[in-house]
């Protein structure tokens, strides 16, 4: 039972916001020693663990080409592509963003969209703009809601799209962990195929909730229509 203290180290470490690498390092050493490994065996465990999980980091091989394309405007082009859909309602626009994020992640373009690159500079202004076009000025509450849902569209799209791409970290983590631990042989492609049903569920469930956002906003803004006040200059 005492080896479970290693899990506790991770929990406390992450909860107190320590540097994640340090948390992992300390938890590994503590768990190894409590589990009866000698210091030398702990070192060897770190070494062989690193060696057998290299597949998780191999996506770095795609960085030069993605970096090259970004120099030539890949992100700007992604933005122009979404901007064509500027005339939609808030909910429909965000549902579309969810779909594009998911497709992007599913073909390995996990860095083309993102909170800093697209949600803040693009998705939020467009989602808020759509609501303003329909209802006039927004209440602070509805503005918060639109922004929260914009962030959620990016997260859900990324999480449940990327596993369809067979070279993503989590798929490679599964194969490298299981193949080394249980001496078996799993193909990333088969795992990726099994990510498709959940990806479709995610699109349906969250897409539906984003579409319903229009009705929520309608109700909220019509009720608050007596003296709606917007936060000046908040739409960046």
């Amino acid at each position, binding site marked *: 039972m005492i*080896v479970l203290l290693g899990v506790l180290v991770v929990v406390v470490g992450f909860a107190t916001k320590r540097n*994640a690498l340090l948390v992992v390092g300390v938890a590994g050493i503590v768990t190894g020693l409590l589990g009866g490994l000698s210091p030398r065996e702990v070192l060897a465990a770190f070494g062989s663990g690193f060696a057998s999980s290299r597949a998780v980091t191999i996506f*770095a091989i795609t960085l030069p080409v993605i970096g*090259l394309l970004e120099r*030539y405007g890949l992100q700007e082009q992604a933005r122009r592509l979404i901007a064509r859909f500027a005339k939609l309602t808030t909910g429909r626009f965000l549902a579309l963003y969810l779909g594009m994020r998911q497709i992007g992640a599913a073909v390995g373009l996990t860095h083309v969209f993102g909170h*800093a690159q697209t949600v803040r500079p693009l998705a939020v202004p467009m989602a808020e703009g759509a609501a303003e076009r329909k209802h006039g000025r927004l209440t602070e509450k509805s503005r918060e809601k639109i922004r929260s849902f914009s*962030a959620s569209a990016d997260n*859900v799209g990324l999480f449940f799209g990327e*596993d369809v791409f067979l070279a993503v970290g989590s798929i490679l983590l599964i194969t490298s962990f299981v193949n080394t631990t249980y001496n078996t042989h799993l193909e990333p492609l088969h795992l990726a195929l099994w990510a498709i049903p959940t990806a479709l569920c995610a699109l349906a469930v969250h897409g539906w909730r984003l579409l319903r956002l229009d009705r929520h906003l309608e109700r909220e803004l019509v009720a608050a229509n007596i003296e709606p006040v917007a936060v000046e200059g908040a739409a960046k």
Partner: protein
Amino acid sequence: MIKAEWFYWLVGLSFLVMASQMLTDRSNPKRFGTTAFWGLLGAGFIYSSWVVEKKAPAEPLGAAVLVMIVLAGFGFTGRGTPRTTTPEQREASALKLGNKLFVPALAIPVVALLCAVVVKKLSIGGEPILQEGSETILGLGIGAVVALVVGMIMLREKRIAVPVQAGRSMLEAMGWAMLLPQLLATLGTIFQLSGVGTQVGKVTTSILPKDSLYVAVIVYCVGMALFTVIMGNAFAAFPVMTAAVGWPVLIEHFHGSAPAVLAIGMLAGFCGTLVTPMAANFNIVPAALLELKDQYGPIKAQLPTAGILLGCNIVVMALFAF
């Protein structure tokens, strides 16, 4: 035969080249620490080949990993000013090139898929072209190289230094976080060696009724989600829950299909990621970035979706994995 190790060497070599660029980058205030970190990572990638084949001891590599942890954990790494194009230049270039820009990017998954499905079956003189069991990784590597060639021809870019510099900037921007998934996998291995999974397994099997497949599926999926909420990362939860329930109970005892059980189990973990403040970069950072009053706004927006999707994962696994 093309071997997976060759691509690990290529990745290690590019880390080493980038590390040498970092050494001469005076715009980076912490260039020595940064160089040491990425240099060790690159060297470790190459050295690992012999560790995997058990021809070299694993201890030196373990020590190098701990040095990397110390370098990054105590703030000895930094980033330089990237040499890149101006926003105006990028805007103009995007306008000129249009959707053609997506072609090289899409070449990566297309080639990876072709390798995993078609090239996998080809062989020359009785020997398969791609090393057996590593087709996907090889596909990714070949896809990246093909995409780079296509991109450079399309953009009429002659200097290989340009993409390497661009890749280095992205590497520095991601920083040590890029190594985190690999270290979490390593932690999972250590947990496994030390018997954490067996312990969690004992605890769960003591409350788990025997021979009830559906309860076991629910325990695995909900356990993945809960453990992810606690640890903030599905990668850390996966080895523990899989060693406890996923492998021994669902796959060995109930003969579940391993790819289905494991892939869906990981996705159940992602439902936990959606609702935990511990996954700061997805949930708390965006709240700050979007200037939200309520820092739990994104989590609240994601909570119902996460709940429903956890249910979906349980149903999909129960229906199709056995």
